[in-house]
C-alpha cells in the first residue's frame, strides 16, 4: 500500500502518510491529529474516516482504543443550510 497515495479522510483529502507522520512526530491523540492535519474536519464530519483515524492513532501510540469517543460529534449531525437553520420555510433543506 502506498501511504502517500492512500487517502484516509476523503473530504479533506488527507493521506495515510500525513496522518501517521503527524502522530509519530507529535505522539498525538485523534483529536490533535485532526487539528494538525484537518483529517475528520470535512463536510461529512469524519463519519467515514473516524474509525480509521482512531485505529491508526491507537496502533502507532500502542494504546487501546478508549471508551470515550475521540473525535466528538457535534450538531448538526447532518449538514443543513443556514437558510433551514435560520428558520426559512422554503423548500431548501440539504439532505
Amino acid at each position, binding site marked *: 500500500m502506498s501511504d502517500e497515495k492512500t487517502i484516509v479522510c476523503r473530504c479533506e483529502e488527507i493521506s495515510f502518510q500525513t496522518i501517521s507522520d503527524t502522530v509519530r512526530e507529535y505522539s498525538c491523540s485523534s483529536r490533535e491529529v485532526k*487539528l494538525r492535519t484537518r483529517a475528520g474536519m*470535512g463536510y461529512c464530519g469524519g463519519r467515514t474516516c473516524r474509525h480509521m483515524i482512531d485505529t491508526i492513532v491507537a496502533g502507532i501510540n500502542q494504546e487501546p482504543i478508549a471508551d470515550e469517543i475521540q473525535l466528538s460529534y457535534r*450538531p*448538526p449531525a447532518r449538514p*443543513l*443550510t443556514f437558510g433551514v437553520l*435560520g*428558520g426559512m420555510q422554503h423548500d431548501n433543506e440539504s439532505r
Partner: protein
Amino acid sequence: MNSFDVVVVGAGIIGCSVSYHLSKAGYSVALVEKGDIAHGTSSRCDAVALICDKKPGIDTEIGFKSIQLYKELAKEFSFDFEFSTRGSLYVCETEQELEIASGYVAEQRADGYDMKMVDQKELLEIEPYLAKDLKGGIWTEVDSTMNPYLVCFAFVEEAKKYGLKLFTHHEVKGVTKGPDGRVQSVITDRTTLHTNRVVNCAGVWAAKLGQMVGIDIPIQPRKGMVLISEKTKPVVSQKVHEFGYMLSKFEDIKYKRNVSKLVEENNIAFTIEPTEADNFLLGGHRAFKGYDISSENDVIRGIAERAIRFLPILKDISCIRAYAGIRPWVPDHLPIVSEVEEVPGFYIAGGHEGDGISMAPITGRMITQLISGEETDFNIDRLNFSRYKQLERVSS
C-alpha cells in the same frame, strides 16, 4: 530534579506564547497542561486578531502591537500558522448605528489608527454579497486572521528549540509556597516541578489555580458558539461583523437593536470570517453558562438567522458543524497581565475574554518583560491584578 526558572500553567494560546517568549529569553520553562495543547478555549474559538472590536485606549494599543508581532512571528517561525492580513469590516444596520460608529472611528483615528467609514456603495464594493440595505460601516485594513490551534502548536514547536519542556496530561493539584510566601513548586497528578515563578495561563480555569495560592481571581467563563460552513467560494474576503457585536460584548453601551426574540435573548450578533481551508466561521454569541460547552440549538438557529439577514447568500450554503467554547471574562474587559503582590513569583496572564488570540503575542512578551525586570512596552498599570483589590476596598 524537575527544577525550572518558570512553570507556565495552561497550554492554550496565552500559555504557549508566554512559554515561547520566556524560553527564547533564556529561561528554563516547563509548560504544564491538564489535556493536550490547545485543549480548551483555543481550539473552540474564532481565528482573528483585531483592533476594530476594541475600545479606544490601552485595549486598542496592545491589540495593534500584537498584530505587528504576529506579522514578525509569521516570517520568523518555520511552522506555518496560516497568518494573513485581510482587514475587517463592521457593518451598520441603521442610521443610528452609523452615527455611533462614526464617533467611535473619530476617536480611534485621533489616536492614529487606520480606520475609516465606508458608505453603502463602498460597502458593497468591498463585500458584494452583503445585504443591499445595510447603511455603511467601518473598515480596518490591519486586522488579521490565523489558525488559532496552529498558532499554539507553532509557539510550542519554536519554544522547544530553546529548550521548553512540555508536560501535557498533567493536572495541577497544588502550588506550594515557601516560608517567605514565594511560590516554591507546582504539584501535578504525576510529578512535582520546583520553581520560584509560576505563570497562571489557565484561562477560564485561572480562578481555580488562584485558589491554590489563596487569591481570588475574578475570571468567569463566558460561552460562545461558532458555526462552520462547508468549503465554499469566498462569500466574504475578510472578517465581517455587525456593529451590534460591540453591544453584545460591552454591557455598558446602551443601544437596542431591532432583532428577534431568539437573537435578543441569546445575545447573538452576526460575525463571519474566512479560513485558509475555505470554510467560514460564523458567530457570535455570549452567555454565562458556567463551564457548559454543549451546543445549544436555539443559539445555532439564532446565529443562522442573523447570518442570512446580513449575508443572504448563506441561505443555500451548508453549516457542517457547530461548537461552543468558553471565554475568560473579567468585569472590566481588560486582561490581567501582572505579578500578584501578595504571592511573590505568582503571575497572571489571563482574562482576555474573546481577545486571547489577538493578544497572545503581546501578552507573552509583556510577561517576559515583567519577569526579567525590563520595562514593559506599554504602561500596563491598568492590567495589574491589584485593580481588583482596590475595587474590593471601594465596595467594602
